[in-house]
């Protein structure tokens, strides 16, 4: 039943509720799709038995009239989320075989609402990467290829498995996380929708930590409305995460399709960077025209510290990572590589367990936090971070949201940028500001480039104003009428 996998999440939930099909049927169709798509390397763990058990339980709940908001919908879970009894490795060798004895709050929220887990999705190791190539389990292949081409492209990163699985119709939606662009850039590279909500919307409890002041979970889906439905379930206050906001979660889907007439949308002039491909510039202009036609007022704004966001991020994120990843010492869980004494055991364990990019970031983080450099690097970066957040605050005096490209290019070939760390970091040039300021950001597919690859536009909102993003996002979605799908080669 291939057609069941082509449904949107919304249509699938409607079909389940009208009893057009059962969750077992829907889930079985997705399990078959997952098994047929191993060439993509999107899943690192498949849980078909658990999925069918969950689907059966869902059908029974529905028969009793107790169906939840997501009841019976098969989803993929990024491997950064701890799932009880199911291997959770953050795509790192150091966590090989780790089976959490607890469930992350975000995934527990999804199961509470009846969702079905298909398995765990590949990603960059510890979410450190923009191409999925740092995964210890090998890169994910983007379901999209250039027209007539047969080279494997990156699905983006770090949530590359989530993006590929959603684009290839292996699941109705997926969880993802975003520390510097890890939801939005893969969404742009795969023609999917991804939203990083306001910092504090989703609990970080049970999500393997990378940079705690920046990490935030969010959904990836094939439509703006589907993303809204998923975020509604994922979000919510959690006493186990002290940075989780004690506020009500709005019904995000109710904002989809709402009129955007009269909304003021800012165009930050600093996002017109040198060397940006003409096609991305054109797409941005097209997005502006769409929103104008929908009744928005377009306002040019300035975010003068934009160019300093990435360098500040590459101090703050590695600094937090070096501290967070200190826990992988080979004593309580994960890999242990014995040495002659305790220190050597630590050193061998971490040398063997971590990949090159993770080591690089731990070393940078350790360096910028070390005696003599703390003020010059770390403190300086925190001050620049404040400047970046102030830029946004000033923009909000004039506008309700911002429109920018999501990424400076379309998906590139695997291997193309893996030798040059700084070139790879520049992928996040448009997305990373949002993490530093804690704001919500969404990527919406808006068109394809000359070689047929998808491109995305990013909407940035005020803190806690995801609603406006869902309204603007669905306006762009409607105008773009993005129907292109990757041609099945896997």
């Amino acid at each position, binding site marked *: 039943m291939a057609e069941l996998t082509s449904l949107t999440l919304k249509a699938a939930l409607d079909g389940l509720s009208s009893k057009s099909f059962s969750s077992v049927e829907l889930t079985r169709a997705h399990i078959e799709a997952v098994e047929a798509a191993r060439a993509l390397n999107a899943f690192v763990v498949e849980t078909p038995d658990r999925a069918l058990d969950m689907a059966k339980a869902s059908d029974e709940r529905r028969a009793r009239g107790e169906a939840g908001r997501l009841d019976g919908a098969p989803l993929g879970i990024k491997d950064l989320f701890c799932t009880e009894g199911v291997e959770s490795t953050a795509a790192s060798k150091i966590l090989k*075989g*780790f*089976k959490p*004895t*607890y469930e992350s709050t975000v995934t527990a929220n999804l199961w509470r609402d009846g969702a079905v887990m298909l398995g765990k999705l590949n990603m960059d190791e510890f979410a450190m990467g923009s191409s999925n190539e740092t995964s210890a389990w090998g890169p994910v292949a983007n379901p999209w290829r250039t027209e007539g081409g047969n080279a494997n492209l990156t699905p983006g990163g770090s949530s590359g498995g989530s993006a590929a699985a959603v684009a290839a119709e292996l699941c109705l939606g997926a969880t993802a996380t975003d520390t510097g662009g890890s939801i939005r850039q893969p969404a742009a590279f795969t023609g999917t929708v991804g939203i990083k909500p306001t*910092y*504090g919307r989703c609990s970080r409890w049970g999500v393997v930590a990378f940079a705690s*002041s920046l990490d935030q979970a969010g959904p990836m889906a094939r439509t703006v409305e589907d993303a809204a439905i998923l975020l509604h379930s994922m979000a919510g206050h959690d*006493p186990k995460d*002290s*940075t989780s*906001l004690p506020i009500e979660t709005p019904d995000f889907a109710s904002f989809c399709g709402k009129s955007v007439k009269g909304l003021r949308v800012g165009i930050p002039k600093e996002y017109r960077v040198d060397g940006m491909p003409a096609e991305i510039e054109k797409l941005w202009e097209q997005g502006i025209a769409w929103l104008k036609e929908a009744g928005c007022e377009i306002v040019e704004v300035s975010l003068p*510290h934009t*160019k*300093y966001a990435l*360098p*500040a991020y*590459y101090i703050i994120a590695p600094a937090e990572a070096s501290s967070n990843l*200190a826990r992988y010492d*080979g*004593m*309580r*869980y*994960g890999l*242990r590589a*014995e*040495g002659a*004494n*305790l*220190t*050597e*055991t*630590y*050193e*061998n364990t*971490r*040398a063997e367990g*971590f990949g090159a990019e993770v*080591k*690089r970031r*731990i*070393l*940078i983080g*350790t*360096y910028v936090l*070390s005696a003599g450099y703390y003020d010059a*690097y770390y403190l*300086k970066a925190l*001050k*620049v*971070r*404040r*400047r970046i*957040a102030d830029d946004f605050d000033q923009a909000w005096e004039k506008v309700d949201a911002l429109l920018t490209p999501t990424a400076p290019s379309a998906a590139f070939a695997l291997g193309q940028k893996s030798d040059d*760390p*700084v070139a790879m970091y520049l992928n996040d040039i448009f997305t990373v500001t949002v993490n*530093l*300021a*804690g*704001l919500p950001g969404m990527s919406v597919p808006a068109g394809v480039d000359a070689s047929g690859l998808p491109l995305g536009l990013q909407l940035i909102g005020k803190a806690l104003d995801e609603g406006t993003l869902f309204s603007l996002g669905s306006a762009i979605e409607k105008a773009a009428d993005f129907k292109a799908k990757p041609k099945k080669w896997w």
Partner: protein
Amino acid sequence: MAIDAATVRKVARLARIAEPEDRLEPLAKELSGILNWIEQLAEVDTDGVEPMTTSVETTLPMREDVVTDGGDPAKVLANAPKSAKNFFVVPKVVE
């Protein structure tokens, strides 16, 4: 600021990551490249700017000082590389 091999050795030691001698030079080059790119932050005037440590400007919540979890050593030890009699087994720490 350029990082030399000796600095990499020191930082790797602090980070408890064994780096073989022949990796120190290449790593010094890589890390220097990244840090040189980061140097542009010096251009930003940050006089009198408060460092921003979080985007959530709330005070940490207090809770009742009561036990909410625990009492399950099997769960705690479930993923241990080595354990015995409800303890983690670690290399000898005291000589």
